[in-house]
């Protein structure tokens, strides 16, 4: 049952999937990395020092883009009602969706980090820390995004609100994840991973409760 659900969620969310998942967040991510040198100038030392942080901010913004499609459409179509009647709790449905959401945006984002790093002329060591940091941080970004998407799903203009609400909550991940670039320190990466895991454990319950609460409204 859970596998069926996960397959549908993946088909819905994966870029290029037949259900309308798009490559837009990735192109957006690459566009930011491309525009940055134009904005601050092509000085290699400056780009090498600040480029990693820009990639982090671009990754955070790219993680916000898919939130609109994450929960609202299924809530409106009554999919969660039907799952509930089949004994599938909202928490389980949301845990599956969290996994699908992460799989749909994080691996491709990590892959796109390589051309982005090339555009910014980042040194190899920075790219390594950047990739490790994103690997540790993106599950947390996905968890925050899912919880916020579920909370705002029944609101009008919920998508824009979701973006605004996700940004401040993502600050801890950004501080430790991007901070590891300035001062190479495995503890910062470990802390990013810890925050991510904590958020992933919490998000299905928050999102599940939000979906249930949306029924009463």
């Amino acid at each position: 049952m859970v596998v069926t659900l996960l397959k549908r969620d993946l088909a819905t969310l994966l870029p290029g999937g037949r259900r309308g998942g798009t490559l837009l967040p990735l192109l957006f991510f690459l566009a930011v990395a491309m525009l940055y040198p134009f904005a601050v100038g092509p000085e290699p030392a400056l780009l090498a020092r600040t480029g990693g942080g820009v990639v982090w901010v671009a990754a955070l913004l790219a993680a916000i883009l898919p939130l609109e499609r994450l929960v609202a459409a299924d809530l409106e179509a009554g999919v969660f009602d039907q799952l509930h009647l089949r004994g599938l709790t909202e928490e389980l449905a949301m845990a599956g969706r969290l996994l699908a959401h992460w799989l749909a945006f994080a691996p491709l984002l990590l892959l796109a980090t390589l051309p982005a790093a090339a555009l910014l002329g980042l040194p190899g060591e920075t790219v390594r820390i950047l990739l490790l940091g994103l690997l540790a941080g993106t599950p947390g970004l996905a968890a925050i995004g899912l919880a916020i998407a579920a909370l705002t799903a029944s609101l009008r203009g919920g998508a824009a609100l979701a973006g605004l609400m996700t940004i401040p909550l993502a600050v801890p991940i950004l501080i430790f994840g991007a901070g590891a670039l300035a001062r190479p320190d495995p503890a910062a990466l470990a802390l990013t991973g810890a925050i991510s895991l904590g958020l992933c454990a919490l998000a299905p319950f928050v999102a599940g409760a939000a979906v249930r609460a949306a029924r009463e409204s």
Partner: protein
Amino acid sequence: MTTARLAATDLACSRGERLLFRGLSLALGPGEALQVTGANGVGKSSLIRVLAGLLRSVGGSVERAGAIGLLDERHALDRAVPLGAALAFWRALDGADEALDRVGLEGLSDVPVRYLSTGQTKRAALARLLGQNAPIWLLDEPLNGLDSGGVALVERLIAEHLAGGGLAVIASHQRLASGATTLELEDYVPPLPGGEGIEGRGSEAARPRVPPASHTPTQPPPRGGGVRWS
């Protein structure tokens, strides 16, 4: 199929600050159907959702024995994918067979759900309901958007469902020909604070209404009156 049963005692339901109905009790066993009627906004959909366990009642309790199949205005089908794929997801969850030909949609499995008309979408939702094989059917306005053939189809499917030992609660302002007991939800609307009943019903609303005595021959008289009146 386990013996289907759906019972509610002393249900009360409110939306926001407004009490929709109270003191509603019902009991349905295999082969029994109940049609809930009432004006728009009286709480038919809320009653269906309370019975389904999707909405909390402010008072009373609901007992269910058997899986619940819900058909309402939300079709729960992915609009972007072909009908066959959208239904395949639910079939995979329910372990059921293809039911498109039973609802008159054969040949449409390659058409994306968003291209279907209102009536066709309703029929597709019916196919999802049939595939679920649930003994308890909760149907919220099942006739909305259907042509006369669709109405006949729904009535035939309900009759087959009841004959197979299922039970059904149908909220509709259109009278179904299935010989179901009728519950007029407006009888349970609490009187307004001024002491006057809704639309001048007043004390009449408190008096129990006798359910229609005549049933069609195929419909056995509901045990215990089918609907209890408190």
